Structure formats: structure tokens, C-alpha cells
């Protein structure tokens, strides 16, 4: 029995086998700041086998209030290198690699590919989306954490089958979020969030049943309110209602769900004589007659268009959005031919 890890191995659902998984795991922490410092401490002390730390930033006096691995004497030093120095004595068997530069499009894939789990402790959307996209490509589980004043978000994207990821919440990097220089940040709040990231990483590695699997935790520590949000796959190129209109491509499965939905109006834009006839209720408005029949469309409903092969329905969808100001428009990709071939 390993005395060092005794207290965590006697916990329910942990034990020697779980500990062995931690000792064999390779975890990459990107950002050794307010989230990264506490997260790293708990990861090293829990016995993670290999830890990578990426941070090109230099320690500044204004960091010390929240980046708790660093002391006054460290001002001016690189964060990744200094963090490694501070962490190495906690559990000397943990191998630590420091990368004293920022993650970018050129180095991200090579670094991330060497680890099992990636923890996003960065402070800007550009790097967050870079990490997200590389993790999607390489199927690397990603533990996301972010702070705003007395609130935080933590999410676990396991990158299994559906590869649910940050873009299923916010499809493109947001522009409006304030940085901590403007918004402020409290060390203890980042400590909670970094610890939650470490804990979720440990749960993931030791294959616990309950963790934030494809969920995002919103935490407000003023009133201790939490809300746990289920994240599901965003349909193809659908964008949030805030970011303007986009036509949604529906596959056959998604299209079938629209049939008989009272909030949906199905529109056949083929000519009346075209075959095959469909086996569900819809409104027929041949594309050339769209304008004179526009009154037949219900703006309160989601408009789902289809045609023979998906070309005319796309054109109709574009016209509905551009000329007639419809918001929620989608069409059956591949057309009714595809529908009958898959049904």
C-alpha cells in the first residue's frame, strides 16, 4: 500500500486501481495563471504521472494575488518554468515538462498529441478556440474552465462519439468578454474553479461514473448558485440567434423529427407534377411561385423546406431569409430522394 495516496485510495470508488490510472496518466495544463496554479498543485499531489505546463507569460507583481504558486522573488520569471520548479518537490515521481512559450497554431498539435487529457486554464478566446479545435481533431478530452468576477464555468468535453465541444455552445470566439485587467479577479474564486478542473480531470482519468460529461457548470459564488447545462450537438452550421441568420442543413434523421412537429411548417418547393409524392403533410409552394405565395408561410413557425435533391430548397431558404426576413429556416440536404433512400 502506498501511504502517500492512502487517504484518496480509501475513498469510495477510488482505490489502488484508480490510483494506478492516475500514476499512468499524462495531463497537459495550458496556462499557469489563476486557474492553472491551483489546478496544477492538486494534479501533482494526486499522483498524475506526467504533467505538461504551457505558458509563455512572465510573472508580474499584479499576478501574485491569485497565481498562488508564485512569490515576490519570482517576478520577471517565466510562469511555466517557475511552476515546474515549485511543483517538483510535491511528488518527485511526477514528471513535469514545461513549455516556456505560448500555444499557437504551429505548435499546438504536436504538444497536445503527447497527452491524454488537456486542461484549458488560459485567459483568452483565441487560445481557447485553438485548444478546442485541436482537441476535437485529435479526440483529446478537454477540461474547460473560465472565470468572470465572482462566477465561473467548468465543462468537460470528452470528445467521444459526437465530439461535443465549445463550438456547440458558442460557435465562434466571442468578442465582448472582458479580460481580468478590466473585470477584476479574486484569487480564491479562481482557486475554486481550478480545483474543480483538477477534480474533473481526476474523475475522468479514474473513470468515475459522475462527472461533468458534456455539461457546463455555471457557478456564482456570491450566492452559491449553480446551474448545470447539458450541451448537445449543434446542428451543422446553425448559429446562435444572436449571431445572425444561417440556413440549417438537415440530414434525413433530423428532417424526420420535423415531420408532425406543430412548431414546424414543412414546405415542398417542387412543382405539383414531380414525383415521388410524399407520405406526410406539407404545403406545396413551387420555387417560381414563392413570392406570390409568401402569405402561406407562417413566420411564427420554423420553416423546413425540401425539394428533389436539395438545390432548390437551399435557394428558397436563402430567399426567405434575405428577401422576406424569415429567421428560422432549414432545408433537407440531399432532398426527398435522400429521404426515400434512407427511410
Amino acid at each position, binding site marked *: 500500500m502506498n501511504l502517500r495516496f492512502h487517504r484518496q485510495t480509501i475513498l469510495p470508488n477510488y482505490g489502488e486501481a484508480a490510483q494506478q490510472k492516475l500514476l499512468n496518466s499524462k495531463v497537459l495544463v495550458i496556462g499557469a495563471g489563476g486557474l*492553472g496554479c491551483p489546478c496544477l498543485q492538486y494534479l501533482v499531489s494526486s499522483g498524475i504521472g506526467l504533467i505538461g505546463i504551457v505558458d509563455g507569460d512572465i510573472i508580474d507583481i499584479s499576478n501574485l494575488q491569485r497565481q498562488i504558486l508564485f512569490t515576490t522573488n519570482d517576478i520577471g520569471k517565466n510562469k511555466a518554468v517557475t511552476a515546474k520548479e515549485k511543483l517538483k518537490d510535491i511528488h518527485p515521481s511526477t514528471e513535469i515538462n514545461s513549455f516556456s512559450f505560448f500555444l499557437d497554431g504551429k505548435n499546438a498539435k504536436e504538444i497536445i498529441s503527447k497527452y491524454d487529457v488537456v486542461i484549458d486554464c488560459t485567459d483568452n478566446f483565441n487560445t481557447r478556440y485553438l485548444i478546442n479545435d485541436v482537441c476535437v481533431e485529435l479526440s483529446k478530452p478537454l477540461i474547460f474552465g473560465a472565470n468572470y468576477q465572482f462566477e465561473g464555468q467548468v465543462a468537460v468535453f470528452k470528445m467521444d462519439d459526437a465530439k461535443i465541444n465549445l463550438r456547440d455552445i458558442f460557435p465562434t470566439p466571442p468578442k465582448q468578454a472582458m479580460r481580468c485587467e478590466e473585470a477584476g479577479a479574486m484569487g480564491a474564486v479562481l482557486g475554486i474553479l481550478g480545483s474543480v478542473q483538477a477534480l474533473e480531470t481526476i474523475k475522468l482519468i479514474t473513470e468515475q461514473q459522475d462527472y461533468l460529461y458534456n455539461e457546463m457548470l455555471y457557478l456564482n459564488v456570491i450566492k452559491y448558485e449553480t446551474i448545470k447545462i447539458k450541451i*448537445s450537438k449543434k446542428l451543422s452550421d446553425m448559429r446562435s440567434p444572436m449571431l445572425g441568420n444561417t440556413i440549417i442543413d438537415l440530414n434525413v434523421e433530423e428532417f424526420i423529427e420535423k415531420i408532425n412537429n406543430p412548431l414546424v411548417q414543412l414546405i415542398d418547393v417542387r412543382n405539383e407534377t414531380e414525383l415521388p409524392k410524399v407520405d406526410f403533410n406539407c404545403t406545396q409552394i413551387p420555387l417560381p411561385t414563392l413570392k406570390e405565395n409568401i402569405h402561406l408561410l407562417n413566420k411564427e413557425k420554423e420553416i423546413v423546406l425540401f425539394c428533389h435533391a436539395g438545390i432548390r430548397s437551399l435557394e428558397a431558404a436563402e430567399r426567405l431569409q434575405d428577401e422576406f426576413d424569415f429567421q428560422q429556416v432549414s432545408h433537407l440536404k440531399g432532398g426527398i430522394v435522400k429521404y426515400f433512400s434512407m427511410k
Partner: protein
Amino acid sequence: MDNKIKIKLFGNLSELANTQEIWIDFKTTFFELRDELFLQFPLLVNKEFVFAINQKITHENVIINQNAEIALLPPFSGG
């Protein structure tokens, strides 16, 4: 409150509205409710956030129950 529905605000949205929850007239579909929200709180128009309805991020028009839990979630980036 009769015929009103509560909407919780997170992040900078609660700062903008100066409260952590707002009440608006209840509407039976998501899109109508969204229109009502922007009508009553125009400062939320063009702000970046997603709607969570009953703990699920929602983009499509769905039917809303009056006891639905609705939250507006902005992105955070601090670390």
C-alpha cells in the same frame, strides 16, 4: 407573479440589467419569449449569450412551460 416568467442572468448580463433575475410576460414559445425579452430589455439585444431552457442550451423554437427555468449564459474567458 401572474403570467410572468423569471429569467436568470449570469456574468456581465446581470451587471447590465443591474439584477440577477428579471421577470417578463410569459409567452408559450421560445421565439415569442425571446422577442418579449428584447422588447422589455433592449440593452440585451446584440449581447453575446445563449439561452438555457430547463438546463439545456436551446437554439430552436420550443414550447415553454410557465415553470420553465430560463437562464441567459454569456461566455467567460478569464483564467
